[in-house]
């Protein structure tokens, strides 16, 4: 049986309290109350007194690894990390944005998370489908086992069946709806560039107002920048106010990358990011 959300919340408070009290970390990244139960917010506890403000429920989908890069290198941070979030933490360690030794990872096994907008259960269709964190120091609930294990790439069947023209039409239609709020980028743990290429003016890589050319430039480049790095948390798509299924593209790129280099993003701190690690034995398929 999966540990209840309430129990996880209790454990989270206890463990965070212990860490802060012992001075092992200077902050704990977790979730706090939002304007209602369905919209919990990212929350930073810096002292024992802050711990009470923490919550955990089925709507705590945000990937807190997003915030790790905000703090100066060397800051000791405790972080609540669900299954996919832990992969983001690993990927950030691989990219040397954070150091393993500076982190205390409070792993959260998840079952029954929900999309606040639709109230649908979140599963392998829109995320990587893992139940248990890949890496953690403390586990805040019992590991989830016995649940159906689905391939995160099954959902791709429909787009993969499309012909080239049809596929382009599909993505053009989807991306044309983008209002360029950049919520996807803000939600993404791997989109940490400051400034993002699309914000630059010299040279100007693409139009900034929402129109086809600029939208394609932004999104296609972003997909490309996340190749081999996206850990399939699905937060970009959940953050999108106009519900563009960005996860489909990210999953497709992740799948190709995994097939080509035999490694999925954020699965082991000993690996190097697939696309900037040349190995002689790498497949040449990428050149085709």
């Amino acid at each position: 049986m999966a540990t209840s959300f309430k129990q996880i919340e209790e454990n989270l408070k206890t463990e965070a309290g212990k860490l802060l009290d012992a001075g092992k970390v200077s902050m704990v990244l977790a979730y706090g109350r939002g304007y209602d139960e369905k919209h919990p917010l990212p929350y930073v506890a810096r002292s024992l007194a802050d711990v009470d403000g923490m919550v955990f429920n089925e709507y705590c989908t945000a990937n807190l690894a997003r915030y790790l890069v905000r703090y100066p290198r060397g800051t000791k941070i405790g972080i609540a990390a669900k299954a996919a979030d832990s992969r983001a933490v690993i990927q950030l360690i691989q990219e040397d944005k954070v150091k393993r030794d500076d982190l205390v990872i409070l792993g959260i096994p998840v079952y029954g998370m929900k999309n606040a907008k639709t109230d649908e259960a979140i599963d392998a269709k829109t995320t990587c489908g893992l139940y248990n964190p890949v890496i953690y120091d403390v586990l805040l609930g019992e590991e989830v086992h016995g649940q159906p294990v689905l391939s995160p790439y099954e959902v791709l069947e429909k787009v993969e069946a499309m012909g080239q023209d049809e596929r382009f039409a599909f993505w053009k239609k989807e991306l044309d709806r983008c209002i360029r709020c950049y919520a996807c980028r803000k939600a993404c743990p791997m989109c940490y560039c400051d400034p993002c290429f699309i914000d630059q003016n010299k040279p100007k890589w693409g139009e900034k107002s929402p129109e086809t050319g600029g939208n394609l430039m932004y999104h296609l480049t972003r997909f490309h920048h996340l190749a081999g790095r996206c850990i399939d948390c699905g937060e970009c798509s959940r953050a999108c106010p106009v519900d563009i299924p960005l996860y489909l593209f990210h999953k497709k790129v992740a799948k190709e990358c995994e097939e080509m280099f035999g490694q999925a993003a954020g699965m082991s701190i000993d690996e190097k990011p697939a696309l900037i690690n040349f190995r002689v034995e790498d497949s040449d398929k990428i050149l085709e």
Partner: protein
Amino acid sequence: MSRIGVFVCHCGLNIAKTVRVSELAQFAATLPDVVVAKDYKFMCSTPGQEMIANDIKEHRLDRVIVTACSPLMHEQTFRKVLSASGLNQYLLTIVNIREQVSWVTHDIDEGTAKSKALLNGAVNRARLLAPLTSRVIDVNPDVMVVGGGIAGIQAALELANTGRKVYLVEKNSTIGGHMAQFDKTFPTLDCSACILTPKMDSVMQNKNITLMTSCEVSEVKGYVGNFDITVKQKARYVDHDKCNACLACTEKCPGKGVSEWDEGLVKRKAIYIPFPQAVPQKPIIDRDACTYFIKGKCRLCEKVCEQKAIDFEQQDTFSTMKVGAVIVATGYDLMDTKPLVQYGYGKYPGVYNALEVERLFNSAGPTGGKVTMRDGKEPQAIAILHCIGSRDKNNYEHCSRVCCMYSLKFAHLFKEKTSADVYQFYIDMRAAGKGYEEFYNRIIEEDVKFIRGKGARVAESADEPGRLIVEAEDTITGKFIKLPVDMVVLSPAMKPRADSKDLARLFNLSTDKYGFFMERHPKLAPLSTMSEGIFIAGVCQSPKDIPDTVAQANGAAAEALTIVVKDKMELEATTAMVNPASCCGCQNCVRVCPYGAPFFKEDKGVSEINEALCKGCGLCASVCPSSAIIARHFTNEQVLAEMEGLMEF
């Protein structure tokens, strides 16, 4: 507003036959900012160069575009024309319409159209070019040679004789390499030691050479002209400064190790010199064989050593040398033939590999130069199997180049030292060096039997215990043969050193798929590498014989000298730099740079590029997600403008 001059070269008919050159010049004249456009038969000729120089003055040009051959050929030529005319040399653009256009098409319409597109892009880019200043750096006059085989010895001596200080780093306890293991050398059959040991001694005696045996390179920093190389001195447990080479210790030592020098055929002491002419003549202790290190008791060597040179407490030490250039000459290993189970090496005592046989012939070897087998008997019939693992897609595709010849040498020596019948199993007889065909003919006359067909299998004889059967197809008669012999000699593929890829990583060298170091250009720069200031010589580059090895060593010494002979050198100005305000600290640049130029500054959280190491390849700029990297001479604006120009067509 720029004032651009465009100069279109015919390259005789090389370009003119598939590009309408005058049309191209007329087209150029219509492009914005182009104030003069001309075509000419040979732009690189003196009149061609003068034409450009005159036009620079007459039309007050501030950008020059030459549409001609690859910049690898004449970029320097035209840069000099600009400099001499008072223009910064980086304001030159070369458009390659020979290799990239005329040589890849037969269609003059297509050729002309593509040339126009390339030129249009180049004009767009030329406008945005900025003058750049080359960097001048100091050059350290010393050289390091890594590997003390014949290649390294030769290179070190050549350099030392010009007065350079040379560090010769050898991982074994003696220099000499494989050549020191041989008895005779083909094709002349002169005694290997007689020609090699004088050179080894010269190394020892030469005041300009610092000989560093039992040493390995552990870290390489810096760049051409200014390398900082850290060398690990492995503990020898003998203080060579005190040791007077009396070798009393080696007599008393009870420890037993395996003699690497004799290819494991015999044992040696735990404190030892590998062979009598070793240089230096001073012993080392093999920890794994030493009774004291194993059991905690013995120290006999210490007792007999009057010099008090034995030091069981000795540790590995590290020291850093500063040099201007490096020659890597680390040689080869023979392929391990055990995995080729069909040949029974390691299983049947009668099967030998080539280096073992070299030791059997050698008078300083395990048998004192007598050809006796592991069972003490002299063989009556011997089969030498060529191409074991070489010319073999499942193992090494290359021809090891020396096996045919040393197999002939073996045949001769077997004939000289035994009364055995000698059979050569070969695929093709490759005898392409000076005096080699003659050597081959000589051996034919010595009544050696040649069977054209690769040895397929070695099995134990069912009828005569202890004898071996070699199976092969004689491709001349088409018959399948089974030949009973006493001894089988395998001529295995020469392969790169087991650690060649690690060394490549240290020195930033490229290797081929097997691990042989890659030259900068297979024909025109066979001794240079992609890392400026690092040269290669000998078999570490590819299999070859001693004459070729020595020739390469001399060449590499000369190449190294061209660098260290100057006290200053100019480096290309086309390097990359990081704009710290845009850098997100992802370190992609650090990971992709093949030259190790970018480094991460922990305190600022951004990357920076060491200009002296940067070769301007632009990889970092292309992987930088936040486009924080400015590749000088190929800035994003310049490249985008060029692409726009190209895409207008």
